């Protein structure tokens, strides 16, 4: 079975936010004005969350951790959705089907990673951007919830292409926009169930950990950091 997953190497990440911008453009995410931003109504599918590290009295450090949807193996959002608008597929992608979403926002509350956002407004872009929207990703209407899709529209294209070439998908055929754009090469993506894949190898390494693992959500985004394994920070 294929289990799509992501690895983010925090020891290489420079917090440049190229992934955030790439995601915004790839997925037709509208810009937000100041008033809405102040009310917490801006949308981003991947954000940088601040984590303070270091004991009191030692040299403090601030780490900015990129947080996309974790595509949990046991997703709390799927469990609470009363409309089956969010579902986990056979290859582990947690999909959001906007046409089915009723905007109740149970899922935004249930998600422990707070990666789900509600569309308070009809999305709008300033004119030159309006013409540059991607046709591969639908624009979400007002009143539905959205979140990181692991750019599954790229999987649709990649699978179509591979089938036309009469072959199966290769490691690297399908990469989300954030992974592709990372200038520090701190992000990896692939099939966690394929022991030969880069992500499977990294996820099995000593630096690997997951966010809020103790909740039992089984996230498929895996972080790497020396700090977690008890080495030098």
């Amino acid at each position, binding site marked *: 079975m294929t289990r799509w997953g992501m690895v983010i190497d925090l020891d290489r990440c420079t917090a440049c936010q190229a992934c955030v911008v790439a995601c915004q453009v790839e997925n037709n995410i509208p810009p937000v004005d100041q008033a809405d931003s102040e009310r917490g109504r801006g949308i981003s599918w991947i954000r940088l969350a601040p984590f303070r590290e270091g004991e009191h009295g030692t040299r403090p450090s601030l780490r900015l951790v990129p947080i996309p949807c974790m595509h949990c193996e046991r997703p709390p959002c799927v469990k609470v959705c009363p409309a089956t608008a969010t*579902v986990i*597929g*056979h*290859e582990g*992608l947690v*999909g959001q*089907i*906007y*046409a089915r979403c009723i905007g109740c926002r149970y899922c935004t509350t249930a998600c422990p990673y707070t990666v789900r956002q509600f569309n308070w407004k009809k999305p709008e872009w300033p004119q030159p951007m309006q013409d540059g929207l991607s*046709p*591969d*990703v*639908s*624009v979400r209407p007002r009143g539905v919830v959205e979140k990181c*899709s692991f750019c*599954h*529209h790229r*999987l*649709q294209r990649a699978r*179509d292409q591979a*089938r*036309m070439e009469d072959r199966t998908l290769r490691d690297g055929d399908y990469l989300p926009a954030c992974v592709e754009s990372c200038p520090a090469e701190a992000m990896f993506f692939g099939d966690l169930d394929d022991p030969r894949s880069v992500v499977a190898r990294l996820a099995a390494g000593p630096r690997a950990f997951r966010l809020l693992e103790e909740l039992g959500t089984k996230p498929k985004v895996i972080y790497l950091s020396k700090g977690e394994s008890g080495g030098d920070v």
Partner: protein
Amino acid sequence: MTSPDRDGAPDRRLAIAAFAVMFCAAAAIGFVTGGLRSPSVDQPIAFNHRKHVVENQLGCSTCHQFYETETFSGLPAADVCSTCHSEPQGKSSEEAKLVRLLKEGRPLVWNSLFRQPSHIFYSHRRHVMKAHIRCETCHGSIALTTSPPRSVKRLKMADCIACHEQRNVSVDCTTCHR
């Protein structure tokens, strides 16, 4: 005993009656003109599939050039028609109109009848070249029509799912939705 309310009542009844008459008249006019209306989708030329496909044996890919290699099929640009219609082939007035349009160098902008919503991913090359499904399975007898059909049976989700289940293809929501 009399109240302004009851004084106003006959007036209101009259107004309601007048409205009802006007409504019926409007509906009747709508019904008649609706019945006479030509295709619900406006096309620059009333294209005759039968004439080209059946009588002149043109393959679909003469005009829909991309279904073998792309996710979409494509609708023909003016230069495709120009290869045969820079001069009239017959006597039809529709063809005369086409020849005039082509001479003026105007682009032909066709409206798609089968358009799916933007949140759907669909691939022609996959269904036509790999699954070997015939055009008419999804498009009905459009290739036999003499003018653009007034209404077509657009594929609904249930149609996609029914075939996918039968042929053991994925029905995960994210297979088609995006």
